């Protein structure tokens, strides 16, 4: 497989995502405003896998939505690959806790959905989709409807859908939260394998699970009350074995640090 440095060591790689002095306010439905992000400065080098953790309501999803151009910063700037988030959308992949599969499309159709919206011709679309379903070990299940898939298979289809667009930047909002423990580990492994198998994509991965954050990411950022409370390089070597990574001392160390600051 490819080289496995952590993102942090490549100080010279180009910047994928850049936030400077970002605040986000929402109009409070009862009048007034509520500041959700209170001055975020964050630089994500291209190819880095960054995990975002923090208490519920601390603004993780808001931050992600900002990168996806679903929320505009009140002050400050956000650039994605040097462009505005809106312009950068074509290089963006997005994955959510609930798989968000369209129930009226087969596995194949769901993987094709993004390609279809972008006007990729039918033949190419079909082949790409098939290739990515193979890649997530769902070859042969192309023609099944979402209800015929288990939760783990569904999330793997969502994975294929995201990957089929070949995005430079991947935004994932608790993508595995809805899975039961066994399936979860399997899909995490699948995901890590995909990510490691090619030129690394930049990933922002939101999760509630500290263990998952440390085991998967190059760098863990802890948000709290709209600020970055903690920003740490994981520094565990890749490829990682998810079964055993929890035993490593570095894992335990970061875990305890995060646990105490949360």
């Amino acid at each position: 497989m490819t080289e496995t440095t952590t993102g942090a060591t490549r100080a010279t790689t180009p910047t994928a995502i850049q936030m400077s002095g970002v605040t986000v306010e929402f109009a409070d439905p009862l009048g007034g405003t509520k500041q959700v992000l209170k001055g975020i400065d964050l630089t994500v080098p291209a190819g880095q896998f960054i995990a975002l953790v923090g208490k519920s309501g601390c603004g993780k999803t808001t931050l992600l939505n900002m990168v996806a151009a679903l929320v505009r910063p009140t002050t400050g700037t956000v650039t994605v690959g040097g462009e505005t988030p809106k312009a950068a959308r074509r290089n963006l992949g997005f994955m959510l806790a609930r798989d968000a599969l369209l129930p009226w499309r087969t596995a194949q159709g769901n993987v094709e959905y993004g390609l279809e919206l972008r006007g990729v011709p039918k033949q190419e679309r079909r082949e790409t989709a098939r290739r990515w379903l193979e890649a997530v070990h769902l070859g042969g299940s192309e023609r099944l409807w979402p209800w015929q898939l288990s939760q783990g298979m569904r999330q793997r289809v969502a994975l294929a859908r995201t990957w089929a667009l070949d995005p430079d930047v991947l935004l994932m909002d608790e993508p595995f939260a809805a899975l039961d423990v066994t399936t979860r580990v399997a899909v995490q492994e699948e995901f890590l394998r995909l990510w490691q198998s090619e030129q690394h994509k930049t990933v922002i991965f939101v999760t509630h699970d500290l263990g998952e954050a440390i085991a998967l990411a190059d760098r863990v950022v802890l948000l709290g009350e709209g600020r970055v409370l903690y920003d740490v390089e994981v520094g565990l070597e890749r490829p990682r074995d998810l079964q055993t990574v929890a035993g490593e001392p570095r894992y335990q160390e970061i875990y305890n640090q995060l646990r105490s600051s949360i």
Partner: protein
Amino acid sequence: MTRELEEMTITAPDNATPVREPRRDPAETARRKLARRQTTKVRALQALLLVAWIGLWQVTADQEWLDPVLGKSPGQSWDYFVGAIESGELWTNTKATMAAVVVSWVLASLVGAVCGIALGLLPTVERVISPFLDAANAMPRIALAPMFIVAFGIGMTAKVALACTLVFFIVLSGARAGVRSTDSEWLRLSAVLGATKLQLFWKIMLPVATPAIFAGLRLGLIYALLGVVGSELISAKDGLGQLIASYSSLFQMEAVYAILILLAIVAVLLNQLMVTAERWLLRWQAPADV
């Protein structure tokens, strides 16, 4: 069978495995065979019921339980039916009725579905106009007949218009309810993937609303028939309703019965057609029970 869920009437497999095999495998074909066998049983029972009902009708006529004007036998109705088939009277009038049913159903369904989806997307507009819709829907259509005739004349157009006023509201409320079940995550995802408004409508809203629209379409088809026939009963040049009206005014109830039964058969066939179309279009839905 060892399983007993004594007090229960619905028994669902309690370990519904999430992964179902694709359609082609042997278990699936066996399941289909089973389904076919059950269908045969159902059909047999239906035939039995039908025979029993005709028998009852015959007895009612024989025993003169009804007034002589109303009490006609199945045989008398059959005689009319055969005669009317031969004279072509039934065929031309059925054609006239069905043409109006189809036109009104298609038209009102299209408009109703679009308006319903629009209202589902615009909750404030919906809140404002929904009492007006309720009010309009509560208008007794028979009382409006004179206005329809002035506006559309006596003919196809008036029938279609009257039936449309029924079907429109039924399909509209189905579509409106359907859009409500849109998952906001689908919209978020589509937005990030760069979907245009048109793409959102065709690729998300319409499929989402389809099951509910279908429920409306099925009921709407029955009401299209009711509306057209009702309109023909009041005033028309042709059509089954018009036939009923004239036989009814001559107290030839055997003919009226025969035509009503024909209508019932048409309704059942139309409904069956809808079920088939629905099953195919909604094959992506998990079956309620297997």
